[in-house]
Every structure is written in C-alpha cells, then in structure tokens.
C-alpha cells in the first residue's frame, strides 16, 4: 500500500469527497444559487480516471460533472467560482455547476441534458482519428443515458467508424428518484447489450478504486492497440440526494438495506482502511494539503468579482 499510486488515488478520492462535502456545507448560505449534483460515494471512478488520463485526451460529462472535471485536471478554484456565479468561473458564470469547462486540459464541457454530451464526445473522438492523434475521448454519463436514443446512435457510429472513444457509464441505480426496475429490464446486462452493438465492453466495481484503475488502464491500452472504442460500466451509489446538498433517505425511495450495504462499500473509507499505521503520517500531510486547497478555492471564489451586467450579451455569437 505504500506505492506512489496508492497515495495519489487516496489524495484524489479524499479531495473529491471533501470538495463535495464543502459544497454541501456552504450551500445553505444561499450564495451558490444553482442546482448541484454531488458525487459523494462515487469518487473512485474519477480518482482512477485522473491517474490514467493524459492531458491531450478529451473528456466531456453530464449533469454530475464535478469529479470528471477535476479528474481531468480542471481548475478547482474556477469550478467553485462557477458555482458561485462569479466572473472568474470556468464558464464565466454562464453555466453553473452543470456546465463546466477547462479547455486548457481538454475538458470540453458538460451538459445538463441526459446523454446530450455523448455524441459530442463521439465527435471529439472522430476529430482525434481524423487528425491521426494517439489520444482518446472519454465520455462520462449515468445509466439513465442508456435510456436515451442518442446513446445507441453514438455507440453505433463509434463502432462503424472505429474511433478512439471510451464510453464511461457510472451506474448508480437511480434516475432522480426512479429506480432501475422501472427503467430497464431486470436481468439485462448493459455491457452485453452494448457489446452486441459492436464494441468491447467491461464492467467494474465502481467503489473499488484499484479495480477502477485497472479497468481504465485496460481500456486505454485496448483503444490504442485496436484503434476501436470501448464501453465501461461502473457500479456505484450516491450518498446524497440526486440534486442538492442533503441526504434524502427519509423519502424512502431507496430500500434501507440497499443503502446500508452500499454505505459499507464506501470507496474512500475502505481504501483508507488499507493503509497501515506507518502510512498515517503521510496521510495526515495529504489531508492537510487537501484542506488548504479547498479553503483557498472557496476563498478565491467568494472574493472573486461578480460578472458585469454587460457580460449578459457577450458570447452569444463568435
């Protein structure tokens, strides 16, 4: 457990968890005036992704994009500023939590509409192929996107055109409050279904960061060797409500035993338990670093200037 990689994975997971918890905590001050979709409980996938992805790879995401943005190397200060609606926000205050971008690291945007960014990520993969680049395009979405036609259109296109796309599905079992049993056939394996469309598929325990790391690595190698797209499905669970800063288990839309079993599979807790006492000192230092980074980001956002009212009409057309 003392390898560099393990500390890096820990650092990212812990950072991601603490960023989301800080947003949840500060939300009640009513300064972050936009919907937020937190990824508490789902950190492992993005932490693993962050250790595999290269700067020149592309990535796009959905309505729950914070950790994909950060995993790709997106600037934390500018993300928090965006949620605060500030001029310094990564989208200049025009997009909010659901519309994040950092072109300096090729994170090309995220969209509030389920499955909306899937073809865009596919287009980025096409672009890489046309330009003969060795990079790949990562496309993040939830399992709800598998209920949208454009997912199938995009996967089919990627298969036909043999483009370097990695479709990343985080299956957290719920679309807002609606459970899988009302949305998808009970025994269907999504990976088998996608494979039948014509692309290689892998499934993975999305709460085990090391497993996630291995799968991302495998996917990357497959795409660069075979020059074909891949579909990944990670099984995971969100601890907070679909949208907002609270837990909502009092609404009883998720069975108690299901919640408890997933809480036992908390990716951060379980991974941290693997560290021995000898590593505690290092972990402490990392935790301190994380707290400082988050404190700085929130201070930066709070102090940042508001956008000017004249910015309202800016950037409608290029």
């Amino acid at each position: 457990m003392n390898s560099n990689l393990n500390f890096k994975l820990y650092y990212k997971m812990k950072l991601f968890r603490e960023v989301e918890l800080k947003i949840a905590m500060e939300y009640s001050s009513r300064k972050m005036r936009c919907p937020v979709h937190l990824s508490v409980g789902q950190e492992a996938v993005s932490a693993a992704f962050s250790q595999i992805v290269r700067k020149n790879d592309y990535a796009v995401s959905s309505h729950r994009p914070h950790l994909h943005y950060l995993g790709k190397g997106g600037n934390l200060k500018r993300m928090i500023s965006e949620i605060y609606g500030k001029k310094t926000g990564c989208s200049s205050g025009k997009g909010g939590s659901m519309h994040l971008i950092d072109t300096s690291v090729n994170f090309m945007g995220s969209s509030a509409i389920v499955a909306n960014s899937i073809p865009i990520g596919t287009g980025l993969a096409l672009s890489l192929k046309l330009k003969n680049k060795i990079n790949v395009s990562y496309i993040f979405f939830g399992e709800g996107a598998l209920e949208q036609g454009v997912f199938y259109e995009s996967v089919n296109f990627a298969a036909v055109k043999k483009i370097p796309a990695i479709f990343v599905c985080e299956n957290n079992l719920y679309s807002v409050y609606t459970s899988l049993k009302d949305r998808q056939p009970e025994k269907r394996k999504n990976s088998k279904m996608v494979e039948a469309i014509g692309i290689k598929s892998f499934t993975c325990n999305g709460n085990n960061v090391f497993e996630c790391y291995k799968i991302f690595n495998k996917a990357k190698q497959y795409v660069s060797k075979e020059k074909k797209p891949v579909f990944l499905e990670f099984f995971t669970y969100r601890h907070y409500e679909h949208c907002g800063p609270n837990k909502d288990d009092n609404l009883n839309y998720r069975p108690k035993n299901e919640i408890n079993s997933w809480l036992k599979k908390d990716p951060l807790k379980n991974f941290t338990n693997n560290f021995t006492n000898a590593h505690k000192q290092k972990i402490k230092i990392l935790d301190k670093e994380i707290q400082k980074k988050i404190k700085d980001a929130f201070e930066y956002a709070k102090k940042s200037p508001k956008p000017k009212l004249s910015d309202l009409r800016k950037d409608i057309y290029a």
Partner: protein
Amino acid sequence: MLKKKMNFKDSINSALAFSLKKDKNMICYGLGINDPKSIFGTTKNLSKKFGQNRVFDVPTSENALTGIAVGAAISGIRTVITHQRLDFSLLSMDQIVNSAAKWRYMFGGKLSVPITIRMILGRGWGQGPTHSQNLAPMFCNIPGLKVFMPTFADDAKRLLIKSIFDPNPVIFLEHRWLHELKDEDFLDKKPDSLSSNIISKGSDLTLISMSYLTLEALKAKKILKKIGINIEVVDLISLKPLNISKILKSIKKTNRVLILDTGFPYGSISSEILSLIYKNLNGKLKTSPISLTMPDIPEPTSFFLTKNLYIDHIKVVKTVLKMFKKSMNLKKLKKPEFHDVPGTWFKGPF
C-alpha cells in the same frame, strides 16, 4: 455579370468544393451524400475529389450526427451536415438547441461551433405532412443560431461559403424547387448584398419574400406593372439576423407591404416582420400590411387536396389588386399545367 449556366444545385456543389479545398480540416456528411443521387446532385464527386475521410456517408442517426458535428467543430473541424428534408432534422433538436446554439455562450465564450446544417424543403408532388415543412421560425427562435434561406444560385454559393466559414452554427435552408434553376432566367443583374436584397426596384408596394416565393413575386411584379403598379421585391435571404433597416427603408418609400412566407402562419417569419413594421412605422402606411403563408394545417399529400394550397404569382396578383382596390382580367394569365411541380424537369419522386 452573373455566372452563366450555374444552377442552384451546382452552386451548392461548387461552394462545398471551394470550402473543402480552402480548409483542409473541413468535413461534410449526411445520409446519401455519396449515393448515386448525391443529394439531388449537390454533393456530386466531392468524395472522389476530397476523399472518403472528409466527405462520407453516415448511419441514419440525425441527433448523434449533429452532436458529433459539435464535437468535431469545437476541436477545430468545420462540419457541414445535410438533411434531404428539413423534417428529419427534428430528430436532432436537442443537439441543435441545447448543444450547437449554446456551447459557446454557456461556457463563457471558450469555444465556437462552426457547423452548417443544410436542410432541404419540399413542396408539391405529394411531399405531404412530413416532407414539406418550413420550420424556419423554430430555429430563428433560438439564440445562438443563424438562419439563411437563399433564392438565387449566385447567392446560394456565396452564402454557403459564408456559412461554412462562420464560427457559429448556421441553419442553411434550400428549397427543393430551386435546385435546377439558373439566375439568368429571373434576374437582370446581380444582387448587391448578402442580407435582405432589394432585387427589383419599385415605388408602390414592398413585396417581401423568401426563397422560392421570390420567383413568384417577380412573376407577379411583371403582371402588375401592366396596370401601373410598381413593385419593389425584397428577397430576405437571411432570416436571422434579419436586415430590418433595409426592409423599413423600402416600406417608407412605398408605404405598402405584402409578405410571402413559405411557412405556417402562427409565430412565423412574416408575423415577426409585421410586428417590427408595426413597432417602427405604426399608422404610417397607406394600407394594412398583409402576409400570405401556408394555412395552419398539416400539408396533405393528395394532388387534389393541395390544389389551392400554395402561394403562387396569381394569388399574389389577386392580393395586391385588393390592396389597391383595382381589377384586371386574370383569365388571360397563364397558369402552370400542374400546381404541384416547379416545371417539367421535376419528375418526382422527391
């Protein structure tokens, strides 16, 4: 001087070839782009000239293909998509409205989306409820989009090149009845601007039209001239942005206005123009401004049901006569043999 013998479809082809040559990264796709019919001839030989990597046929997936264009465009690849009928593009409304039109604004101007979406509009020959709609107002309603609808071959070429090299998403509307037409059949001289062209001067009435209807407007003008009504014909060309100042300038001169619109009436391009005329020139006109549109019903398919549906020059003449409280013998006017084809060259099927 107009280029001789260049019809609308060849102009489109020539604009695409010019652009593909100028920008080595540009790509162009759509269902049937390389098939034997090559989108009514508009994409003929492009794949041969520029390679299958840049001009390629695609799966029947309008929504994904529009998103793919956005993805390609934000990473520096200009993209032209073609729909053989506008009506198919409705499957891609999410990508047009939520992605193409927004990817610049909602990310604070970090990226631009240079895509052009060609949509072909049908009329007649039983195109029916879902192959004949002009839904331009829907696209014009979206901030971030531009909407062009040229009439003349020469304009089509210039405007398509302009669309392709515009850093913004452009909806490019082509009327199917124009594809085989040459400008010298209708125009004496070249129009002078790319937006709201006054293509034929007059002093008594401003006749605003779009696309194919501009040809009917020019025919009506010739007829009405015989009884001393001089019509100024304004061809909109760009529906968004709309060159309203040029339109108002013409109306201030003529004090009468009639608008011809190939779309449905409710929330239409013509009602938008009427409202701008009202806001700017309220009470200053000699007669109430009038618009002719398609009726507020889905277009039926049957030859027999569409008989009186379309706006043609005779309808225009009758409307103008009413505005001027004048009459003339209309029996001598030559009606086309069939109301549902643009000419003998059109033999269907679409």
